[in-house]
């Protein structure tokens, strides 16, 4: 039976039409994973010696242990945002002679082999081997290693229980911040205290059994919860929440663009995919804090352009790169409706422009870091409206991937093609290059003004640019209809 399930998973993976086209992304992800594996392996093998050198009077294992609280809490928070809950298309299985418990066990066991669980082993295992080589007690190290593996697995199952629960996330964040705070103010060394617990395991390896019990307990709770959901009504029940319709009549002022803009606002507000990328906005807006508070970047003025373009353009980039794929699930209908492409694209352009200006206004507190920075941001805003918005609309004509609005966004590359990666080049690198060059040749002021002027030129040419973009959309109409009709 397990073989059947595995075969299905295998076919699902390789036969999705996404696979054939999305190979570039898969390769990229593989490189990403490989990079992490190498880094973890490096720290795992070399970690002992580095710690020994930096803190010669302390035991590296004790040092590592005193950090584990942060590691596991951080891991849980990371999982909270990134790890997808285990899924399997169980609907067709329900009526077949397969025990429901078997399906649930399969889903749960499958999740144990998730990337998130394997990753950290690349640190723990080599680190443990080095410890043994260095003459640490064999049984103690083994007990410690098994505890780590059990804890990683426990985190895996704990995450499924607390996911979607904001209170649990709050507790995790409070623990990590609080732990750091009490340590920093030397009130109480919480991480160190937890660390001594791990030291104790090393000294008494049999305590590992406690963690077996914890893991078994978490697994059992997960099992119980999932087992109750292996019914059709449980699968659909959460969907039918009552709609809270908001009055969007204020958009009527936008004339014949209003219906589309209303639609886009609802699209963003009512779908998982778009909702979960809203927190990306906050991230993008605060992007500058990383650079401006770091003295390393103080003299690299080009960074202001990067921050300017990115912080005023997060929405533009996140939303714009998937035009018109957002509307892919009903693209057929749009194409047989009575309106011109111009009206449709104009509404998208308007939304993006409003967002850019709004994000600039929200970013005015960057003034704290200096007038010149705000000036660059202003120029970047004009550039975003005049140049980047057109570039991204043009890039949309290459969109060939359907988007399922009901899926979460983090690490969701559905709808992403090579274009989405390539388009980053003119969006970010080009203004940085222009600014950098003129800043180097002439002056900071002229460079800033140039960016703004480029933006204004784009705005002045808006009608002509749009006409060219629309032509391209019309030329690609049938290809897009065909592509959007296929399940990713």
């Amino acid at each position: 039976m397990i073989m059947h399930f595995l075969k299905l998973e295998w076919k699902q993976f390789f036969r999705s039409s996404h696979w054939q086209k999305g190979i570039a992304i898969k390769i990229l992800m593989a490189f990403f994973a490989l990079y992490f594996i190498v880094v973890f392996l490096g720290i795992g093998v070399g970690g002992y010696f580095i710690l020994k050198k930096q803190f010669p009077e302390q035991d590296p294992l004790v040092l590592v242990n005193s950090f584990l609280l942060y590691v596991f809490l951080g891991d849980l928070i990371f999982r909270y945002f990134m790890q997808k809950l285990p899924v399997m298309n169980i609907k067709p299985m329900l009526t077949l002679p397969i025990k429901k418990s078997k399906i649930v066990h399969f889903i749960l066991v499958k999740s144990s082999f998730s990337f998130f669980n394997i990753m950290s082993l690349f640190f723990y295992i080599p680190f443990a081997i080095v410890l043994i080589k260095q003459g640490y007690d064999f049984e103690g190290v083994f007990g410690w290693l098994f505890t780590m593996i059990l804890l990683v697995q426990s985190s895996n199952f704990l995450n499924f229980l607390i996911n979607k629960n904001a209170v649990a996330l709050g507790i995790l964040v409070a623990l990590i911040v609080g732990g750091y705070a009490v340590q920093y103010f030397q009130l109480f060394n919480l991480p160190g205290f937890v660390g001594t617990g791990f030291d104790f395991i090393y000294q008494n390896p049999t305590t590992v059994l406690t963690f077996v019990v914890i893991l078994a307990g978490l697994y059992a709770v997960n099992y119980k919860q999932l087992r109750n959901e292996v019914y059709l009504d449980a699968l659909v029940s959460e969907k039918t929440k009552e709609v809270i319709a908001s009055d969007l009549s204020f958009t009527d002022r936008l004339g014949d663009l209003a219906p589309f803009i209303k639609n886009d606002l609802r699209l963003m507000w009512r779908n998982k995919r778009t909702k979960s990328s809203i927190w990306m906005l906050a991230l993008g807006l605060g992007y500058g804090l990383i650079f401006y508070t770091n003295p390393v970047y103080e003299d690299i003025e080009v960074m202001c352009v990067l921050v300017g373009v990115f912080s005023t353009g997060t929405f533009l980039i996140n939303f714009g790169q998937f035009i018109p794929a957002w509307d892919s699930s009903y693209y057929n209908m749009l194409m047989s409706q009575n309106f011109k492409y111009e009206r449709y694209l104009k509404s998208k352009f308007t939304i993006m422009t409003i967002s850019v200006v709004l994000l600039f206004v929200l970013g005015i507190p960057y003034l704290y870091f200096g007038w010149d920075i705000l000036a660059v941001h202003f120029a970047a805003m004009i550039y975003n409206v005049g140049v980047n918005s057109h570039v991204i609309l043009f890039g949309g004509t290459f969109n060939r991937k359907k988007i399922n609005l009901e899926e979460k966004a983090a690490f969701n590359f559905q709808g992403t093609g090579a274009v989405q990666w390539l388009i980053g080049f003119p969006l970010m690198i080009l203004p940085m290059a222009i600014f950098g060059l003129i800043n180097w040749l002439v002056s900071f002021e002229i460079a800033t003004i140039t960016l703004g002027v480029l933006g204004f030129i784009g705005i002045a040419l808006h009608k002509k640019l749009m006409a060219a973009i629309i032509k391209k959309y019309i030329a690609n109409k049938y290809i897009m209809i065909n592509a959007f009709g296929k399940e990713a």
Partner: protein
Amino acid sequence: MITIDTISKKYGKEVVLNVEKIEIPKGQSFGLVGNNGAGKTTLFNILLDLIRPTTGLITSNNIVVSESEDWKNFTGSFIDESFLIGYLTGEEYFEFIGDLRGMNKADVTAFIAQFSDFFNDEIVGKKKYLRDLSKGNQKKAGIVAALMGNPEVVILDEPFANLDPTTQIRLKQIIKNLTENKEVTVLVSSHDLTHVTEVCERIVVLDKGAVVKDIQRSEETLKELESYFAL
């Protein structure tokens, strides 16, 4: 009203549609029947310029559909659920389509009110997204949306499928009313021979992409069709 002129569609070497000539006069109720894979939906998709034909042209009201978009002004259509916007409620969806068809909010409300029987209180005022409705109710919403804005041509693909018996009867009445004054041309496809013979005055049978029968409805039509398909 609509002229289908030597339309063919090939995918690679496979011919999925090959229609010589069909002339549909204004106000006709036109039924398209055929087994799975006969090319009914393909023909409708070409009519709506969603697919390009390999050869041939379709003109609607003297407009070549693949060359100008003006036919959209007078054509309403519902092919499948991909014509619905899942994250809107029924009202919002009708409002959106109404906006595109030049109706204001009051027009839309008045128009929808006519269909309260048809909807059976399950679409409007339910505070539910279209994606959460049952297949049948989704279909009802799509069909009514296709009738918005006084279209001269209405294209419905498999409108009777998934509907309950009461709604099927009501839908037949709606289609009959539409073509009563010979103003609106209605194109309907179906697997159900009884429904089609009841609402359509002309029935075309497609088989493997080709027209095999083109008959005006008479007393014997249903029998003729049944004996054809009973092979």
